């Protein structure tokens, strides 16, 4: 399954597999951690400094705290 996660990160899965892997990610902490570490490795190789201190979880927390929803008429580039 970790190989599927690697392929998900690299945009190498078809729609059906994406849905399946996401389902697995939702149910498996260790798999989500794998996805995160694979992304971190790529950033480190590209020279993007990579602190691992909950940066993404703070983004998710703010999305939840502020109850952010997809809005039909909203254009973030306007």
């Amino acid at each position: 399954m970790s190989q599927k996660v690697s392929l998900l990160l690299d945009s190498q899965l078809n729609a059906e597999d994406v849905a399946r892997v996401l389902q697995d990610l939702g149910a498996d902490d260790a798999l989500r951690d794998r996805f995160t570490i694979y992304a971190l490795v790529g950033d480190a190789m590209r020279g993007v400094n990579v602190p691992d201190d909950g940066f993404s979880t703070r983004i998710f927390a703010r999305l939840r705290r502020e109850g952010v929803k997809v809005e039909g008429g909203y254009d973030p580039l306007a």
Partner: protein
Amino acid sequence: MMQTDSELVRLAQSGDHLAFEALVVKYQRRIARHVARYVPIASDVEDVVQEVFIRAFRGLHSFRGDSAFYTWLYRIATNAALTFLRRAPLEEQLDDSEDEGSNLFEPGISDGETPERTLMASQIADAVRQGLARMQPELVDALTLFEVEGKSYSDIAQMFDVPVGTVRSRIFRAREALAKRLEPMLAPQRDRRW
């Protein structure tokens, strides 16, 4: 082969939070580095990056797939950073930051980065470098060509005259080797990750 980002975006547009979270995990640091070119203080960078992803999530329906999702995010990030700068003039930000160290995302820019975060980033980078130095060359080549050179799986397969399946396997094996090397170092932070 379908582009996963398109599918992740489609799922996120239909309300799948996990799909959006995967996109955040994938692009957060690249967006942070871009924002840090405009915004000198690390804590401000993080605020702006949060704003970028909030705007992106709210506006997912406006993403039509005419460009790559990352390109769209990058444009949102530029706008968000410029908006931030208009609200807080650069001189004030630099006065606030004084000589508190280099910006973690964009070295050389002053900010309020903590030594602990700088050390952690440096340790991760060192572990990746050491891991690559001890890895079979064909695995290093595959991962480097993909991650650093931006080559596609099929480009890499052609370059080494191997099936695409071999490239998939090599990239995965390289990542796994590096992940195993990083795991002990990252374990204390596990509950703060996705």
